[in-house]
């Protein structure tokens, strides 16, 4: 079996607390992401999603465990991993265009001014920012426009892995929908590997190839890897008519409402060293058809591994 593009092995984050038990945010988190895959992670606040993302970005370090990308361990921030933060993180004293050229120049220090400008304009146009708006400062742009600039900056450096930390969390529903469509469009033409945090179940189904579900913290784990086998291209109006859509949606909502808490409480209390385990792969879209085990379409890396974190009765429902 050849190694997946991104491999997260037994990632654990503990914060030492003075005079008490250490606070374990998440432990033994293991999953893989293949090249070109769009993976969302969903979980309640406090389960450490953002910390996982920061570890992937190299901005934070885990207490134990390893992240391997393209065969190399992730030890610090790198231009190979672009990040879009929830609060846009644009530099407010630079115009939208200058924010993008900032990234492009860092990526290609040997490029001429014209090359940098041309490349930046290309990506700004891709997110629909042109005709003068690119010369405005972030404070003069709406939230949606700012996030577009941030997305353009991240795509323009053409990272191997794009990390999106709740990129649409601060936007109103209409703007969010438009930018989601734009994100899909840009992504489908780019073969970009994307890892994204979200709170929005519909957004995750619309965008993702796979959704990772996290149990509640502390001691959060990635419990399931839900495959979204709804054919692409997807769009918001048509996706809801897909026969699998509501099965997936109900599965996700049920997980967030009930099982994320239940699973968190039945944490296996073995103190022995746990082996890196992948979350069970689940295909809710096929559940009612009574299809047998995995049909071999999915490239989910978890299929050939034990799935101890999923309740047995749940497994039967799933398969």
């Amino acid at each position, binding site marked *: 079996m050849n190694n997946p593009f991104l491999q997260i092995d037994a990632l654990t984050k503990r914060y030492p607390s003075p005079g008490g038990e250490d606070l374990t945010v998440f432990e033994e988190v293991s999953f893989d992401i293949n090249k070109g895959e769009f993976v969302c992670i969903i979980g309640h606040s406090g389960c450490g999603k953002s910390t996982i993302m920061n570890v992937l970005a*190299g*901005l934070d370090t885990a207490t134990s465990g390893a992240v391997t990308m393209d065969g190399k361990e992730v030890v610090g921030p790198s*231009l190979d991993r672009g990040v879009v933060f929830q609060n846009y993180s644009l530099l407010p*004293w630079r115009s939208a265009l200058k924010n993008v050229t900032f*990234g492009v120049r860092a990526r290609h220090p040997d490029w001429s001014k014209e090359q940098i400008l041309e490349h930046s304009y290309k990506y700004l146009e891709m997110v629909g920012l042109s005709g003068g708006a690119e010369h405005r*400062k972030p*404070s003069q742009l709406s939230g949606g426009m700012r996030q577009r600039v941030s997305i353009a900056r991240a795509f323009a450096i053409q990272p191997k892995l794009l990390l999106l930390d709740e990129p649409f969390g601060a936007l109103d529903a209409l703007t969010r929908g438009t930018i989601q469509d734009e994100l899909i469009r840009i992504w489908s033409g780019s073969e970009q590997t994307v890892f994204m945090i979200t709170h929005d179940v519909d957004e995750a189904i619309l965008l993702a190839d796979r959704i990772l579900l996290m149990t509640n913290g502390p001691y959060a784990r990635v419990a399931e890897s839900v495959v979204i086998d709804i054919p692409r291209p997807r769009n918001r109006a048509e996706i809801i008519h897909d026969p699998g859509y509501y099965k997936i949606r109900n599965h996700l909502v049920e997980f967030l409402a009930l099982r994320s808490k239940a699973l968190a409480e039945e944490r296996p209390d073995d103190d022995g060293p746990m082996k890196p385990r992948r979350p069970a792969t689940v295909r809710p879209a096929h559940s009612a058809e009574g299809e047998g085990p995995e049909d071999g379409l999915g490239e989910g890396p978890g299929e050939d591994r034990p799935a101890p974190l999923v309740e047995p009765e749940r497994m039967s429902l799933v398969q």
Partner: protein
Amino acid sequence: MVSSLPARALFLSAVILVVTLGIWELSTPAVKAAGEMTEYEMLMGGADQEARVPPPSQVLERAWEELSNPFYDNGPNDKGIGIQVGYSLFRVLTGYFLAAMIAIPIGFLIGMSPLMYRALDPFIQVLRPISPLAWMPLALFIIKDSEASSIFVIFICSIWPMLINTAFGVAGVRKDWVNVARTHELGSLRTALTVILPAAAPTIVTGMRISIGIAWLVIVAAEMLVGGTGVGYYVWNEWNNLDLTSVIFSILVIGVVGMLLDAAFAQVQRAVRYQE
């Protein structure tokens, strides 16, 4: 008719100015004719009559005289106001920019390194509240030059606001922006110049504006002590000459120059300001 707020404010300012000057003018009685002097007044040569706060009309007359020929030089005790202000500005700017060259890099260091912050904090806390003029005797003894000593006094008084504001501004740069630099693999020098400096610039320039204000306050006192040249010396010299008209005139000049210095830094502040 409703005029705009600035227009009404301007009008009110003018009214306040005219009323104040009018009261001042009327409350300074005219000099009595010399013929009716008492014996005491004759002994004083009429000086008692002269020794009064001059009315604004006289000050304006003097201002016109001085400003129409600001750069004359009739020896050590009789120089034009332009020359005196020039001396003071030279000292202030020299000491000030020397202070900036030291305060801003050290402020950066303190702002970026919690270790340096803790290590240098006690020194700053002790040195900062010292009146700059208290350094004067030590400076005169060590430097043995009055000109350089007054520049040193300006240096020492303008260094603290710049140092503290730079450290504060650098330490307060939003972590998101530093993370942007980190994810773009910028080296520490590039990060300092392209992210931290512009992010902290408004705070740094505010410190620079406070410093130039303090430096201009201190130079007058320093020049009164050191003597020789400068607008502070000019005030003291005219006091020794009992020429209160010139004293009032030079007070106004000090105010106007200070205002212009402040306005220049307000412009810089506007240039580096950004809105989040």
